[in-house]
Structures are given as structure tokens and as C-alpha cells.
């Protein structure tokens, strides 16, 4: 299987080369996407088989490339298999979607080679088993995605997005490199096996963990390292955005899990507080920023930040429980996190596909200029609605299950010995609850403004439903969201071995239980059954409808909008995205983000139009990055005159340096 996976990755690289070779040929697009689809599907099936058939098996392989004397190690265990599934589920879906969507691509030569290479990179990261190979593939992944982000370099802001993205990415890589350096020790044991064997003392483990939190976090989008994400993800073509948001952030999570749980093993318990703090912050801020956006893709990107926060809450809890020897709770938390990884990759890809469909149908990303699409694009609307419901954690869909598991893990917190954690965990739980509610608001806004109401522009009025392939992909993912929601037991059982390999414990098997319900801890404690809920909802809704239609009336008349008797108003009077978010902005705006509202109201009798302008700033820019940039430029300005000295002054520099060194020699001994 490992050989197969590696050869598939190699095949993807070959596809990239082929894409370069094909150049301008019009056949390039279908060929490349079909090939990548095939490779990803093989990988997906293979990984699934491995995960279902014998997850316990660990296969390794060492190729005579990479670092001299080390070779590049590859390893396929349950964790890797799971993330291979996530990666290639997204990968194959993106490839398939692109078979339709990719036709609209203006500059395929800037996309095709990097797309395949990007897929290959992500798969290789998951398979890598030594520090060098890991970082190499990791940064290769960043590099190719950067190329995809700047594919449309002439659109405003994209180049900047790419710049910030790649700088942040290599910052993260350097942080990871430092972490690996710590773990490898002076001997330079870069193979993961060696790191597993070595048990770093707590201080080193803690520093390494924090470095990983920074390194992997900067790629996952943990606040305040998230600034690149809402810029870069929307900039890429939509199927790539789906990959970046749905899959690459998960690869980052994989990096964290792999290093922290597998390589470091035993970080001190207090590190979990740091992780939880950042996770909680990320969750709430992510969704709040998302609420403030009116660019559909950027909204989705910001919302990725929130979900990453949820995942990291699970991871932080897992660390806390594991270091306090409550393995079963650690297993619960980790299961929740990994389950959410899968879920988020499902509905976030779905939503980005939907956004891409809207984009290609209307050439608009700004929700303020959309509306009423449910009439023009009914199928897309259905799929998108399901995605929205899923990401808002509404039962009986999948988003709820993972959040429910996270809550269950949070409710174990009383068993933690440390008071810090005892109080920290419920607080994080409160943040999680808040973010869940806000997420619902966010997606009511996203769907309502985009698809409901009346079209606000000509583009929205004349939109056409997208091609069948794209629709097929969207509906497939919508279906998966349903299945994962009503049959969570199956997935939890698949996650069992993965979790067991990391925390030495796993949830009790679920699929055997009556009525397919899930019982993470004990029957008396908590249980959930999405299937029954779905049946209840469906049956009661239909029964009621039938009852009403049968015994009451089913007469219907179409009439103009009543609207409290106002005459038919122009769509401009509709509620807009920013007006929808206004109450939230009022509530949190003053504290969380620096909102600038500018109202220019003409005096009575004046004929000019009134203007209302809202500017929302991401405080991370104001307080962290702005100063950093200013400091850099300032230093550069300060040093710059050294380019313009006279020869004599340069000689003086040399001379003084020489004298200093001579004095050193004279002083020595």
C-alpha cells in the first residue's frame, strides 16, 4: 500500500510535468484533471482499504534520496491512512469539480502543473517519516499552493496575498525546523523513529510543542497567525480554495498531531492550557471576522479559522487528559478533533465548490451584489444549504456530531486534577458554544444574502446553473455530510485504531450498538442518534404536511410582496450582508475589532445621496503585523546609507575592524 501511495504521488508529479509539457494545448485541462482524479481516487481507495482492513499495520520504506546518510523515510500507519483519506477525498473531489469548473480558467498554464504537484506534496507530507522529508514536502506544498494563489496575479490584491502567504509559510517552516532540531538533539537524529525513541526532558518537549503550535498553527490559521489565510484562500481558483481550506489546513493539523502526540509524546500538562487558550481565541475571533465579511469566499476562509479553533480545542483537551493519565477521555477528545477534521474537510470543500459555482455563474464574490440565486441556481442552492446547515452544527448533520463529542470531552473536565484546567476547560467550552451560535448566524447570512431575497444586480438576475459535473460533486459531498451525521458510529470506529496509536486508548466500539446510536463514554452518561432524529424530523414534518393538506386546505395564491403594505420596492432596500451583521458588529465591534463607521447624512433639503461606510480591521494587523513591518522598513532605512559611503569611509570600516580584531588577539593570552 505504501509503495502504491508513493507511486501515486510520483504519478501526480509526473502529471505536473506532463502539464508543463502540454503547455497551451486545449486538451491539457481535461487530461491533467482526469489524471489527478485517477491518482487521488486510487490513493483514496487504498487508504480506505488500509483503514478498514488492518489499520494496525505499519509499513515503512526508505528511499536512498534526501539527506545524505539518512535517506528519506516513509511510513504508513493508521494516522497517515486517515489523513490520506481526508486528503484524497478532497483531492479527487477538487479534480472532478475542476473537470467542469476548470473550463472557465483563463490561465490554465499557471494552474495545471501546480495543481497536480500540490496534491502530490500534500500526500507526501502525510507519508513522510523523517524531519528532512517532512519539511521538504511541507514547504513544497506551500510553494505549489503559493503558485496557485498567484495564478491570477493581475487581479488586485492577489500578489500581496501570495507574498504574505509564502512569507508566513516559510516562517512556519522555520519554526518547525527549530522544533525538529530540538527533538533530533545534537546527534542529528532526524528520523522520526529516533525521535519517538528519544524522550526529551519536559522543558525541551514544552518548547518544541510551542514551536510546533506556531509552525503548524501558521499553516492551519491559528489566531494570530491566521492573517494570510483569508487573503490567500479566496485568491486561488475555487477548486484550489477548497483544497487549501478543506485539506491543507488539515495537513497542518496532521503535522501538529504527528509531532505532538507521536514524536514528543509527553509534553508537560500546562502546555495544554496554552493550546486551549489559542484554540478558544481562534474559534471565536475566526467566526466573528467571518461574520464581518461580505466577500463570500473570504467569509468561508475566515470560517475555516473558526473550525481550526474547534479542532485545536479537541487537541488541547487530548493533551490535558493524556498528561493526567485519563487516557479514555484523551481518546474522546482526540476522536472529536479528528472527526471534525473529516467533517470540516467535507462541508468546507462543499461550500467552496458552491462559492465557485456562484462565482463562475455570476462572476461575483461580493454578496452585496448577489441574491435570489435560489431561483436561478436551484441545485447549487440545495447543496450549499446543506453545507451551511452542516457547518452550523445543526443536527442531524455531521458538523453537530463532532461538536457534540467535543462538548462531551469538555464535560469530563472535572476529573482533571489541576485547577487551572478545571476552570479553563469550561471557559473554552463557553467560547465553543458562543462560536457555534455565531456560526449559525454567519451562515444564515451567507445563504440568505446570496441565494434568498431578490437579485441585487443584473449578474445575479441572469445567472445560469453550473455544469453537471460540479453539481454531481457538490451533491456527493452533501450526501457525505448526511451520512457522516446519521452514521457517526462507523466513522468513530474507524478512528479508533488511529486514536489508539496516539494515546493508547480508544472509544468503545459503536457500530454494534442498538439503533446505530453513539455512546462515547457510558449509556447512562450521554448518547446521540442522528438516524432516529432524522427519521423523527422527516416523518413528523411529512406527516404534518400530509395532515394539513388532507384535512385542512392546500389552496395557494400568488400575490405581490406585502411588506406591511409598502409598494414594490427596489432590491436596494433589501437587507444587505453588512446590515445583517450590524447588530453583531455593534455588540462586539467596539471590543474585538476596530470598527470604523462613517455616516454622511445630507441635511434636510439637500439632494445628494447619503453615504454610510464601515471599515472593519483585523486587530492582528494593527497590533502585531503593522508594527513588525514598520520596524523592518525602519531598520532598512537606517542601514541604507551604508550603501552610499565614500571609499575612504569604507576603508575606515575595514581599518577599524582590523584594529578591533588585532586588539582581540592582543587581549587574548
Amino acid at each position, binding site marked *: 500500500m505504501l509503495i502504491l501511495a508513493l507511486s501515486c504521488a510520483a504519478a501526480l508529479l509526473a502529471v505536473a510535468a506532463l502539464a508543463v509539457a502540454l503547455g497551451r494545448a486545449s486538451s491539457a485541462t481535461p487530461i491533467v484533471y482526469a489524471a489527478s482524479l485517477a491518482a487521488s481516487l486510487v490513493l483514496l481507495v487504498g487508504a480506505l482499504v488500509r483503514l478498514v482492513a488492518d489499520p494496525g499495520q505499519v509499513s515503512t520504506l526508505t528511499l*536512498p*534520496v*534526501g*539527506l*545524505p*546518510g539518512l535517506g528519506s523515510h516513509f511510513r504508513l500507519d493508521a494516522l497517515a491512512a486517515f489523513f490520506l483519506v481526508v486528503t484524497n477525498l478532497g483531492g479527487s473531489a477538487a479534480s472532478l469539480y475542476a473537470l467542469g469548473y476548470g473550463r472557465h480558467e483563463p490561465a490554465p498554464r499557471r494552474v495545471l502543473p501546480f495543481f497536480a504537484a500540490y496534491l502530490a506534496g500534500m500526500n507526501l507530507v502525510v507519508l513522510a517519516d523523517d*524531519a*528532512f522529508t517532512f*519539511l*521538504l*514536502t511541507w*514547504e*513544497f506544498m506551500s*510553494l505549489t499552493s503559493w503558485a496557485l494563489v*498567484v495564478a491570477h*496575479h*493581475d487581479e488586485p490584491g492577489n*500578489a500581496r496575498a*501570495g*507574498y504574505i502567504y*509564502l*512569507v508566513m509559510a*516559510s*516562517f512556519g517552516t*522555520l519554526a518547525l*525546523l*527549530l522544533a*525538529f*532540531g*530540538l527533538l*533530533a*538533539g*545534537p546527534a*542529528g537524529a*532526524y528520523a522520526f523513529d529516533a525521535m519517538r525513541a528519544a524522550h526529551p526532558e519536559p522543558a525541551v518537549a514544552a518548547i518544541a510543542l510551542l514551536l510546533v503550535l506556531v509552525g503548524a498553527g501558521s499553516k492551519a490559521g491559528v489566531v494570530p497567525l491566521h492573517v494570510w489565510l483569508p487573503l490567500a484562500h479566496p485568491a486561488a481558483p475555487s477548486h484550489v480554495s477548497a483544497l487549501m481550506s478543506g485539506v491543507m489546513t488539515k495537513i497542518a493539523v496532521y503535522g501538529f498531531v504527528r509531532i505532538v502526540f507521536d514524536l514528543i509524546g509527553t509534553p508537560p500538562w500546562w502546555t495544554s492550557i496554552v493550546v486551549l487558550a489559542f484554540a478558544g481565541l481562534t474559534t471565536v475571533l475566526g467566526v466573528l471576522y467571518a461574520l464581518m465579511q461580505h466577500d463570500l469566499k473570504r467569509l468561508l476562509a475566515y470560517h475555516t479559522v473558526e473550525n481550526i479553533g474547534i479542532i485545536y480545542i479537541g487537541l488541547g483537551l487530548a493533551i490535558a487528559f493524556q498528561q493526567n493519565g485519563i487516557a479514555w477521555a484523551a481518546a474522546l477528545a482526540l476522536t472529536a478533533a479528528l472527526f471534525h477534521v473529516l467533517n470540516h474537510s467535507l462541508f468546507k470543500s462543499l461550500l467552496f465548490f458552491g462559492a465557485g459555482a456562484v462565482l463562475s455563474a455570476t462572476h461575483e464574490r461580493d454578496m452585496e451584489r448577489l441574491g435570489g440565486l435560489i431561483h436561478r441556481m436551484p441545485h447549487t442552492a440545495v447543496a450549499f444549504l446543506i453545507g451551511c446547515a452542516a457547518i452550523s452544527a445543526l443536527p442531524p448533520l455531521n458538523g453537530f456530531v463532532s461538536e457534540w463529542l467535543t462538548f462531551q470531552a469538555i464535560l469530563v473536565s472535572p476529573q482533571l486534577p489541576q485547577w487551572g484546567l478545571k476552570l479553563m476547560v469550561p471557559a473554552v467550552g463557553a467560547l465553543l458554544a458562543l462560536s457555534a451560535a455565531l456560526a449559525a448566524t454567519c451562515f444564515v447570512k451567507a445563504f440568505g444574502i446570496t441565494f434568498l431575497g431578490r437579485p441585487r444586480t443584473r449578474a445575479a438576475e441572469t445567472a445560469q446553473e453550473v455544469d453537471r459535473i460540479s453539481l454531481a460533486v457538490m451533491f456527493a459531498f452533501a450526501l457525505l455530510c448526511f451520512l457522516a451525521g446519521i452514521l457517526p458510529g462507523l466513522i468513530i470506529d474507524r478512528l479508533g485504531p488511529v486514536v489508539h496509536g496516539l494515546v493508547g486508548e480508544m472509544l468503545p466500539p459503536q457500530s454494534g450498538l442498538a439503533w446505530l446510536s453513539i455512546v462515547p463514554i457510558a449509556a447512562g452518561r450521554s448518547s446521540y442518534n442522528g438516524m432516529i432524529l432524522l427519521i423523527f424530523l422527516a416523518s413528523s414534518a411529512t406527516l404534518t404536511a400530509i395532515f394539513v393538506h388532507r384535512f385542512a386546505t392546500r389552496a395557494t395564491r400568488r400575490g405581490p410582496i406585502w411588506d406591511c403594505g409598502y409598494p414594490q420596492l427596489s432590491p436596494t432596500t433589501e437587507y444587505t450582508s453588512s446590515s445583517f451583521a450590524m447588530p453583531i458588529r455593534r455588540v462586539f465591534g467596539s471590543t474585538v475589532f476596530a470598527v470604523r463607521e462613517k455616516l454622511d447624512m445630507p441635511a434636510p433639503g439637500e439632494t445628494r445621496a447619503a453615504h454610510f461606510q464601515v471599515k472593519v480591521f483585523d486587530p492582528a494587523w494593527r497590533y502585531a503585523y503593522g508594527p513588525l513591518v514598520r520596524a*523592518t*522598513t525602519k*531598520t*532598512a*532605512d537606517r*542601514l*541604507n546609507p*551604508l*550603501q552610499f*559611503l565614500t*571609499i575612504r569611509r*569604507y*576603508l575606515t*570600516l*575595514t581599518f577599524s*575592524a*582590523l584594529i578591533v*580584531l*588585532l586588539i*582581540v*588577539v592582543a587581549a*587574548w*593570552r
Partner: protein
Amino acid sequence: MIAPVYAVLLIPFVAALVLALVTNYRWGAAINIVACGLTFAAGASLLFVDRVRTDVVLIDDFNIYLVTLTTFIGFTTSIFSASYIGHELETGRLTPTFLRFYHALYQAMMGAMNLALVANNIGVLWVGVEVATLSTVMMVGIYRTTAAVEAAWKYFILGSVGIALAFFGTILVYLVAQEVLGQGLPAMAWDLLLRDAARFDPRLLSLAFVFLLVGYGTKVGLAPFHAWLPDAHAEGPTPISAVLSGLLLNVALYALLRFKMLLAANPETLDVGRIMIALGLISLVFAAFMLYRRRDIKRLFAYSSIEHMGVITFAFGIGGPLANFAGLLHMTMHSLTKSAIFFAVGHVAQVKGTQRMADIRGLSVSHPALAVGLALGVIAIAGLPPFGVFTSEFLLISSTLSRQPLLALILVFGLLVAFGALLLRLQQVIFGEPIGPVGRVKASYVPLFLHIGFVLAAGLWLPEPMVRWFKIVAAQLG
């Protein structure tokens, strides 16, 4: 049939004389390429014939691959130069007379560098470096613009001072050596020096090293002795910028490292590693910040050369098998990559008719191949995988971390700052709406992509013998 060791010296100098007489520039370029090709063949054949050792020349694990590398880059650069100067003649920046001069000097420089590399005698080494410097000085000034003249003058003055100081250091080394090895040539022979370094007077040896450090350090372009470097790169013909960054800096560093070996072999001496670390970090951070304010594309990459020389010096300052290995690898990778970048930059500057980055935009639209080459080069030099520079930086950072964690932080900081600047400029140049001329370019892509291909290959896999040499040398460097 003469031994390849002497061939790499004879061919260039003979070619220099011939070229000084050839008037037709096409013939000149052709002969130049042929001569460089022969030299490269000779240099490569060194890998297969058995090692030579006399009082004057020496081939060992250290210089064997450097000779090959130097002759190789000399060869590729001569190919690039052929297509480059054609354009220079058309635009009339150079006249055939000057081209004779140019080609002759080119060969002289190659010969001198080979001499410095294969010399088994610190005096001959010094002569080689001096001749190479002087010939490049004249090529830097060859455009005769005020800026070029100033660059050359600056280079010349600073270089001469460096030469002088290095010579004093050489005298000191001889002084300490002749007490042990007796008077005459043996007291200047590398291998003997290295053999008996342990018995030398440590204090005078350290003093000597300080002078050699300042002297050859000027050639390496370490801050604060770097001043000549950016202007010399910016104002001279681009092939010369390529060999300056790709080769001359390496040769000077090679000289420095030879002497570092002597000190490493003598435990009593001053711990010069600290000094090299300090100089390296200063160069790295200083150059990294200087990158942000550059407007001239060639000057930009000149500063990036300073930055990387800083990294390399830092690596050797840290010492230890891993860091030294990283340093040697970085030397090689930097030469290949930086010369490749200058190949691309040269064509870009020619087709756009300017070196001001503000006047170069949207290269990826107007000249995709050049843009790809440039982008790959910059990505490689910025230390991103899967290129060789990443390998060396990986080794360097992680090994530094285990020795001196705080220094590793400074190193990472400097690299990140530099990366930010380089990426910023790269994006400005290759993205956006193209401005300036968009005409076709008569470029020779072979050298460019050949170099990048090698760097890429090295990033994924290093040939066994190379690793072995590096390890041996790394051990000697202590």
C-alpha cells in the same frame, strides 16, 4: 600529453594570449567557449586521474571538486557570455576592441582562479587571488560609465588593501612555519603546513589569521569589508557578475578555509570560530536588511551574495562535522544558483533595457521562460525546497540549534528577513501587467536551466563521492 592539473592552468593563460590577438569578436567568443570547455574537461578529468602533489600544486579532497565546479561554471558562463555580448555590441555598449580585452581577461581570470585553487603554496595562492582580482577589476570598469569607473576604482582600492593585508598574513604564516619546517618552499606548502600545524607558534598563527581574515574576507565580501561587492556586481558586465558571485568569492573563501584548517589543527590557537560567527551573522543580517531598499536588480542579488557568504562563514565558524558539511554544500549550491540567477538577470536587463526593478514588470507575461528561470533561481537561493540550498540550511540550522540555540534564532531571523525582501522583489518583477519592451530575447537558456537542474537534483540527492569529500574536508576544518 600534460597532466590535467597543469592543463587547467595552461589552457586559460594560453587562451588569454590568443584571445588578446583575435580581432573578430565572434571568433573570440567561440575560442573563449572552446577554451573554457577544454579547461572544464581537464578539471573534470581530475576526478578520475590519481591525485597530484608537488611543492607547487596539490590536488586533495578539498579543491578537487572546487576545481571542477569552477571550470564548469566558467564554461557555462562563457556560453552565456557569448549570447550576452552579442547584444552588448548591437546596443553599442561595448566595442570589438574592448571585447578582445574582455575575452583575454576572462581567460586570465579563470586561469588565476584555477591557480589559486590547485596551488600547494600559500604564496602562489595569494598570487592567484591577486591576479584574478585585478582582471575582474578591469572588467568591472569596462563600460567606462562614471558609475562603472567608480565601482572599479572602489573595488580596486579596497581589493588592493585586502591583497596587502592578506600578503602580510602570508608572511606571518611563513615566519611561524619556517621555524618548524626550515626555510624555503616547504615552509609554504599546504600539506606540510597542515601536517605540522600543531607545532607552530599559536600566537603568531592567530595574528596571521586575523590579517588573512581581513584580507581574504574583503574578497569574500563579508561585512564590513563588503563595500566593493554590490557596485562591482551591478556595474560590470553580467557574466562577470556571475563569475564574481559564483567563483571568485568561493576562491577567496577557499583560501580562508585553508588557513582555518591550520588553526583547527593547532589547539593552542585563538578560537577564530567566534570571529567567523560574528562576521557571518553581521553580514547575514546587514545584507538581509539592505535587500529591502535596492532598486537595481543586479545590486539586489549582489547583496544576497553577501548574505549567503555570511551564512557560509557562520557555518564554518560554528564548526563540527554537520555545520562544516552544510557550509561546503552551501558554497557549492550558492555558486550554481547565484550564477544561474545572474544569467537570467542579464537577459532580463538586456531585453528590458534597464536594471531598475521599478521599470521591470509582468515578466511572467512578456517573457515566461526568463520569469520561470528567475523565479526558480530566487526560490532556490531563498532556501526553499526542493532545492539544494534548503538542504544545507536545514543541516546548518538544526546543527546550530544543538550547539548554540540563540545563534540559531538570529540565523533564522536573518534568513527570514532576507527571504521577505527577495520574494517581494521577485513578485514585483514577474507579476502584474508587463511594462517596458516585450520583444523576443535571444537568450541561451541552457546554462540557466542546467544550473538550476543541478541545484534541484542536489536538493533531492547528493552523489556519494561528493558526500565523502565533504565529510573528509569537514573533519579537517574542525
